[in-house]
């Protein structure tokens, strides 16, 4: 069996004890409360909304508008991958920042977009009864509300 370890290595002086990290959004009770609040308003604004999740950029569920815990986790990780792939394509084509991503399917669609100024994403699943335009504008409103709520209550 080969061993390449005889090449010189840079020895790090141990893992630096990192400075205390700010609480990540999916563990921060304030952020979770804000997310729950905006999501419940979302349901009122839009009857064709099936499911909505707010997630961290790295795919942890912050809050959801459905009770299937397993499904919520799944949506959060898939939405995180989709968002990152969208960003990668936009970057490669040099077309600026991703505004939103739409997956249109036969009986419904998914819209997702970043919560402005935060490393969080809103992912929402509508049934086909809604027009894309309406769903998009409501989703945008909800994402903006989330930003406003976090920053106002944090201040």
């Amino acid at each position, binding site marked *: 069996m080969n061993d*390449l370890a005889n090449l010189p290595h840079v020895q790090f002086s141990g893992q630096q004890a990192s400075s205390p990290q700010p609480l990540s959004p999916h563990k921060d009770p304030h952020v979770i409360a804000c997310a729950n609040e905006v999501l419940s308003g979302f349901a009122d604004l839009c009857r064709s909304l099936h499911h909505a999740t707010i997630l961290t950029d790295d795919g942890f569920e912050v809050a959801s508008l459905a009770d299937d815990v397993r499904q919520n986790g*799944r949506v959060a990780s898939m939405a995180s991958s989709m968002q990152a792939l969208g960003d990668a394509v936009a970057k490669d084509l040099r077309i600026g920042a991703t505004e939103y991503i739409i997956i249109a399917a036969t009986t419904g669609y998914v819209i997702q977009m970043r919560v402005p100024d935060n490393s969080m994403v809103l992912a929402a699943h509508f049934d086909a009864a809604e027009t894309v335009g309406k769903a998009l504008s409501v989703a945008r409103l909800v994402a903006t509300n989330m930003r406003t709520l976090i920053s106002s209550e944090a201040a």
Partner: protein
Amino acid sequence: MTEHVILFAGPMGAGKTTAIESLSEIETIRTEAINTDRETADKDTTTVALDYGEITVGDEDKVRLYGLPGQRRFDFMWTILNERAVGLVLLVNNDAADPIKDLDEFLEEFGELHEKGGIVVCVTRTDVAPIPRIDKYAERVRELMPGRMIPVFTADARNSDQMRTCLMSLIANIEMTAMIAASEERAA
């Protein structure tokens, strides 16, 4: 000209993204997000979909390098990319809580790639944590996949020469598997 699709799998922080960056001849495609799970790996970002890079081997063999997300909640990406792959670079960081268990888990998940082409195990961050020694990994690989030729290296994912050595040994195995399959086909 043949095209190989090689996967880079392994736990969070093993160095998959770094290894592809070290190896690729094109600007890599990355899908990094801010890492909120600092307990598992204390680094700024983590891969949430895939890494992509390319390297030419020999005169014209193009090798496509795909890095997977290390975190299991992205395992749907593992499934998607696994279907296309003919080989696996399994990276395990020696400074993980239980790296031999990580080796077990990922060999269980991706062990079939040995039959499709080949597997090489690459132990990283041995400068940060000197144990377990490399023979522990080799022993475990023999236990889990007896009779298979699966080389085990230590390498620094940041070092392109070391990563190249790992990749070349994998490609040699893949080509041998393909030759054996072709000769068996002729014999049949």
